[in-house]
């Protein structure tokens, strides 16, 4: 009888992801501290630094996940991208329509609830579509859940919109988990330990700030930041707590896209296109993708310039257009599941 005891493969797993786990924990801890200490300044600085680059890296990552030829997935991707652009356009149009159509509170309620309904319907359609593709999934529950969410959104449209603001940063964590499962399965246990730290850090923030005095809304920018975090929807909750929570989650989101995804998902310098399937189709496709990435880079630089010139206006415009990347994550996450 053999007495040799082999180390089970899983025993070595956490150590291999130790560096990643340590870096992510340190980043999350620092983000929580800064978000709680000086939320407005932290929000301003992080959006200025990472808003553009994280979008560019996200687009670069999605290019690696898009198949060279869409084949049977063509309808899925066409519907997904059409939805992304149409819904973002509709969202940007809402304030423009409000004036001519003379929306009062009732009009705004209908408009926001209607837009939320379209988003929920679009996501439900994608979920059901994806469930019928290989590998097939049993996601029939999506329809009743979608109708339930639609019911909630017609009663509380602003709360549902706010939920999207707060949950969107967490979607990046889910995508990272799927990417780890695909390319670095050995790192997943360490990553899951990091995920446990997230509610702990949020709990610490809420414990420290639940009765913090509200942040002064003495400037247009401060007012915009507190409103973005839901201060005019969640009455009775300290705006300091709301902004700190939102900024912390945003920083985690930026950390995933700027640090973790390039390290794990791309694994080569982002300007090299060897892992972009569509770039291998032909020279024309390759040139088109190079042009697209260069255009994206120029947008990043222009965004920085505009932030320096007029931060409040640029921030407002950015968070309207940034919906594009929020919605774009949905089809890619569904394909990864």
């Amino acid at each position, binding site marked *: 009888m053999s007495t040799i005891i082999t180390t089970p493969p899983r025993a070595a797993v956490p150590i291999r992801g130790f560096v990643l786990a340590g870096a992510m924990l340190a980043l999350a801890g620092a983000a929580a501290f800064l978000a709680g200490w000086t939320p407005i300044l932290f929000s301003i600085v992080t959006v200025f630094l990472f808003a553009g680059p994280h979008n560019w890296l996200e687009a670069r990552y999605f290019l690696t996940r898009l198949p060279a030829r869409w084949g049977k997935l063509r309808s899925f991707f066409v519907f997904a991208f059409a939805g992304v652009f149409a819904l973002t356009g509709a969202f940007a149009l809402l304030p423009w329509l409000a004036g001519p159509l003379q929306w009062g509170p009732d009009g705004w309620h209908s408009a926001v609830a209607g837009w939320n309904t379209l988003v929920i319907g679009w996501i439900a359609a994608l979920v059901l579509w994806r469930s019928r593709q290989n590998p097939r999934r049993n996601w029939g*529950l999506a329809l009743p859940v979608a109708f339930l969410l639609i019911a909630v959104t017609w009663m509380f449209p602003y709360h549902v919109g706010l939920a999207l603001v707060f949950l969107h940063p967490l979607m990046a964590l889910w995508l990272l988990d799927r990417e780890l499962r695909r390319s670095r399965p050995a790192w997943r246990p360490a990553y899951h330990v990091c995920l446990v730290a997230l509610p702990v850090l949020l709990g610490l923030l809420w414990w420290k700030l639940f009765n913090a005095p509200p942040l002064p*809304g003495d400037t247009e920018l401060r007012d915009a930041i507190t409103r973005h975090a839901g201060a005019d*929807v969640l009455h009775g909750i300290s705006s300091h707590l709301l902004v700190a929570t939102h900024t912390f989650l945003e920083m985690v989101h930026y950390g995933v896209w700027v640090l973790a995804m390039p390290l794990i998902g791309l694994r080569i310098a982002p300007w090299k296109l060897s892992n972009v399937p569509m770039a291998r189709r032909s020279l024309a496709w390759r040139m088109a993708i190079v042009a697209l990435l260069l255009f994206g880079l120029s947008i990043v630089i222009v965004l920085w310039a505009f932030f320096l010139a007029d931060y409040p206006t640029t921030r407002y415009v950015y968070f309207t257009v940034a919906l594009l990347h929020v919605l774009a994550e949905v089809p890619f996450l569904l394909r990864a599941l």
Partner: protein
Amino acid sequence: MRMRAFYMAALLLPLSWTVAYADIAPKPRPTPAPIPNPAPVQSKDANLIVQVDPNAKEARLIVPRSLLNRRAGLDVDDGTRLTEADGRSNRHVIIAGVALALAMSCGGLWLVRRNRLNNSGLMVCLAVSAGLIVGTVALANARAPSPAPPPPQPAPVANLAKLFDGKIRVETPADGDSIRLVVNQEMLDKIVKGAPTAPQPKPE
């Protein structure tokens, strides 16, 4: 099958009690006098210019739109910000109700189609229903929320002399940042005449 029907009946029966109980009129209680909740006064600092136009036939008050326009009550924190209760109409509740009904029917179909309604599934359904029933009863019998305290009002200014009482045309041009009051000489004289004279120092 009979067992399933029994479970479903057991699930539905308490719901009917809840509906019946929630619809019972509350016992008459002495109600305190309602607190008046006047619309909050909104204020904004602006420059005022009084101009005399000899050709003016009527007084004109010109208020730039920049001092009037507000985006859905979101611009200032004066207690008038958009809240969930604002804007919700019966139409919204009807749409929500239809969606809820569709959610329940689709959920039921999903449960039945895949034969998920086994014993454990039924237990989960019963537990969720029991939670909903308890929640509904608790909510239906909760005290009505007390009215929000009225926002602080600026102190009323008393004993003001009336300098002018007449019709005025209000204009809201797109440009400018000052409020202008345009009057003719006759109106100005009337205003000046009506102004209380400042107390003169008594000669020693």
